[in-house]
């Protein structure tokens, strides 16, 4: 079994604005906290693990995205970095039980349930925003600005 369960949410506003995603579009007029909880979720399956110190042996390996996890001795995820041509990481959350805190977990087996909020490349919006109200449009820009700010801050860290 894979030691890591991975869920990636694309928070790009385009996902919200695509015609088949009415509920997310409705959320544009909702509060920012509610907005944060939604996105297009993906569950990457073809995961290859490379551990610290290991040489990347297979040169032909064409990994699409690289996720770097920094873990504490106790198995907690301390930081996440992402190297990708298509996505930028906004924030991460580990939903797994912490084996050190939770004694009911058998042994000291790692249980990492990682949720990544990412954003795909910004796209031209004029087509899909044509029938938005001013309020919704302002919210679209607010979301994008928050994302830009977040990416910028993570670069500057």
């Amino acid at each position, binding site marked *: 079994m894979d030691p890591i369960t991975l869920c990636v949410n694309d928070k790009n506003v385009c996902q919200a604005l695509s015609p088949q995603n009415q509920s997310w579009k409705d959320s544009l007029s909702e509060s920012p906290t509610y907005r944060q909880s939604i996105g297009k979720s993906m569950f990457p399956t073809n995961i290859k693990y490379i551990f610290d110190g290991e040489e990347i042996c297979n040169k032909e390996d064409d990994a699409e995205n690289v996720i770097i996890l920094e873990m504490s001795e106790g198995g907690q995820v301390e930081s996440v970095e992402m190297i990708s041509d298509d996505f930028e990481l906004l924030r991460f959350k580990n939903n797994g039980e912490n084996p050190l805190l939770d004694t009911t977990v058998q042994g000291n087996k790692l249980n990492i349930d990682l949720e990544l909020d990412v954003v795909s490349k910004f796209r031209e919006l004029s087509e899909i925003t044509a029938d938005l109200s*001013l309020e919704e*449009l*302002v919210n679209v820009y607010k979301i994008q*600005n928050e994302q830009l700010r977040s990416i910028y801050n993570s670069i500057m860290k």
Partner: protein
Amino acid sequence: MLGRGSPGTVAGDAGTVLDARKGDAGGVPRAVQGGIPAHPEFAVQLAGLEGQMGVLSVPRGWGWSAGGLPGAVCAQGWHRGEVDQGSVECWCFGVRLVSDLQRWQDKIDREVELLDSVRNELSSPDGTRDSAVLGDYISRENLDLLRGRLEEIPTVETHIANITNQYRVMVRKLEEKLLQGKVRSLSKCFDRDLGIENEQVALLMTEYHAKLLLLEEELVELLQSLTDHFDKCKLLLQLSASGTESDSGRKSTDYLELLEVVQTDDSQLGAITRALCDTIDDIDAHLLQFQKLLDTKTGQLDKSLFAVQEVILQFEKNVEYLTIFQDIGQLITNFKELCGQDIQLVQGLVDFFGKYRDSYDRLLQEAQRRRQLSTRMQATISECLDELQTLQDDDFTKRTKFLEQNGNYLPENIWPDQIDDFSPLFTLEYTIKKV
């Protein structure tokens, strides 16, 4: 669209609008200070919001051609978009609202004029006092409501033209200065200085990197040979020590072979040390070069990041502007709603006044009916009175005759107070209201 067919067409020249504002303290346009009788607070609020947009002052001579509206605010955002009718609706009062206001103001004016022209026949039927008109009995409070709104509209439209301008300036600035300017040049600079195509970046990533790796290997090799030499010398020393102990004078072949190797190596020691020093110098020089180039690139990166920061700040500022536009839009929507409510109120009044006139007509009929009834009642009473009088006269004659024939023979107290009483049997009191 805006202002067409409405009083006081919107100023086509942005300069005039802004000049008016510049001339006043506190950023309140003259038109507002001039005072609007009905609802000045709206314009003041609007002006306040416009004040926040002050940064976006319109360059002189940059005119706004009538016909366009900030539909793009609703529709396109950064993108310069086509004005679509739906969003225009929410910004512009439109000809309809103005004509509705006008129509209902006219209607109520006509209605009041009618009421003022009808004399109240019931107020002074004999015409002795100054007779009142129907209009005297209504409250004059809300009759000029819509006129007030209509007077306010040119000011509001001026404000709308003003913010429309500001919006256009914002979009233009965004498009030209930020997107075509800053963002494009930032992206160009980044590609040029830090992109993978950049020669220096390629130098850092490949050539310098490879060179340093090579030098590292060289260094390792030299150090390796030095430590090897050291190990051999140590071994030689051991062999020499053990040789002297076991069989003195006779050197083992191992010892002799090693000695030869060590002697050859030793002769090269100077050259190797020199090579080592050279390599170290080489590495130092390369590292310095590498560091210098890296510093340049880091500097360029910092500059780019600073520019990115600025662009993000600009984006955030523009969203703030948009929220101000949103507030203004809300104000205008509220104003429209208020106008709608006022129209409804006036519609109610017009309806009421019409019914008032109808009911007044029916009141006159009712008064007439009551008058006729009163007359009929009077006639009935007169008839009745005549008949009673006839009976009374007859009664009087009969009493007189009775007393003449029998009065002398009847004791007075046999029917006290009645025998010689000549008062009439009936009394009739009546009132009939004069209508």
